[in-house]
């Protein structure tokens, strides 16, 4: 039986940037939707920075501890997943936001061991 390969840092980074683009191009109307998008963008930004650092650390052969901010960001994205999927079409997000988030969360889980 075929198993899903473990996502690499570049694959997870690409998923995170794709989600960032979807959120940046969204047009949320109202306090709740706009706060959800801003919070999700902030969390994706933290994850992207951590992935860049992890990639650099791997290249130089140095291990680095996962910061609490990354763990918090991943938790926040998990919590926002349902909300984003619900409001996705209303705020003009094109594409499968839940699928993108899943790819990002799976990658973070395996890279950061969260």
């Amino acid at each position: 039986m075929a198993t899903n390969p473990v996502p690499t840092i570049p694959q997870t980074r690409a998923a995170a940037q794709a989600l960032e683009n979807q959120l940046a191009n969204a047009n949320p109307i109202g306090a709740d939707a706009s706060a959800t998008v801003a919070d999700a963008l902030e969390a994706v930004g933290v994850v992207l920075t951590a992935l860049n650092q992890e990639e650099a650390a791997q290249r130089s052969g140095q291990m680095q501890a996962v910061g609490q901010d990354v763990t918090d960001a991943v938790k926040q994205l998990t919590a926002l997943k349902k909300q984003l999927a619900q409001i996705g079409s209303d705020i003009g997000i094109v594409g499968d936001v839940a699928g993108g988030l899943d790819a990002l969360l799976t990658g973070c889980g395996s890279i950061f061991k969260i």
Partner: protein
Amino acid sequence: MERHRLIRWCSAVCVLSMVSGCAFSPLGKRATAFSTAASATTLQVKNGYQVVEQSYYDVQVDNLVKVFDTEGFKTDNIKPFLTPDEMKARTQLLQGLQQYATLLAAVSGNDAVAALDKQSESVGKDMESLSKDSGFKSVAKNSTIEGGVAAAAVDALGRELMARKTAKELPTILDEMQKPVDQICQLLEEDIGDPQTGGLRNQLKNDYDQLIADQRAFIYANEKAMSPDEKRQAIAILPQLWIAEKQNDAALAQTQEALKKLATTHDALVDTKKSKDAPAFESLVSQLAVQGSQLSDVYSAATKKEK
């Protein structure tokens, strides 16, 4: 009799000029022109780092506003995008290129290069230790150049700056430095990166996306407490942020182009070692000078807007 003496004197001057390879040689003149244009360009690259640092700082201030009521102000939460080591590495690479350009102009001239030696030696030493620094690894991480090759290029430039050179060695200097200068320019160019895949342009894009999202959320969260004028002003910031993002990204893209042009112009200078005329080089060096001056205008405008 007088005529013969004049001919002898002119011959002696010509022989001396050829031996010393002085400023009046076509190559010396070209090296001086390259030096001026290259120095102007490297100065502007530093401004690119400031633009990214500013957007990163703005995002942190936005985040502070969001959490202030619950978490207060923690100084740890305000950090530069590039750590001091990372910024120092980039600054030293640019200083190395700038010093190399100055050295070319100096060895092309008739003046003794002794005054410059100390400065070159100091920058050269910095370059040699730079290749082992963690800050340098952060520059190399976005590059397609292999880490060891990048470090060797930096070492080579450092060694060249530390060696005592004279005018007649100009062609050799150019030959030896062709690859290292190309590689250092490529390193800095790839460090600026791309809005989607990484580097400074990616950070800038993501920062502005966050600033726009935060501003929009701020308006919706506080619109009931705003006067119509206050709400209008808050809304007007949204397109301003969007335009600033596009302009700053264009400035970084232009900086990448200037670095690419610097390497191409240096290659062209190397190719003209034995040529009397070099129209292709003349065209490239004037383009490089124009690019440097345009970048200066772009970054001055960006800095004024920030203020």
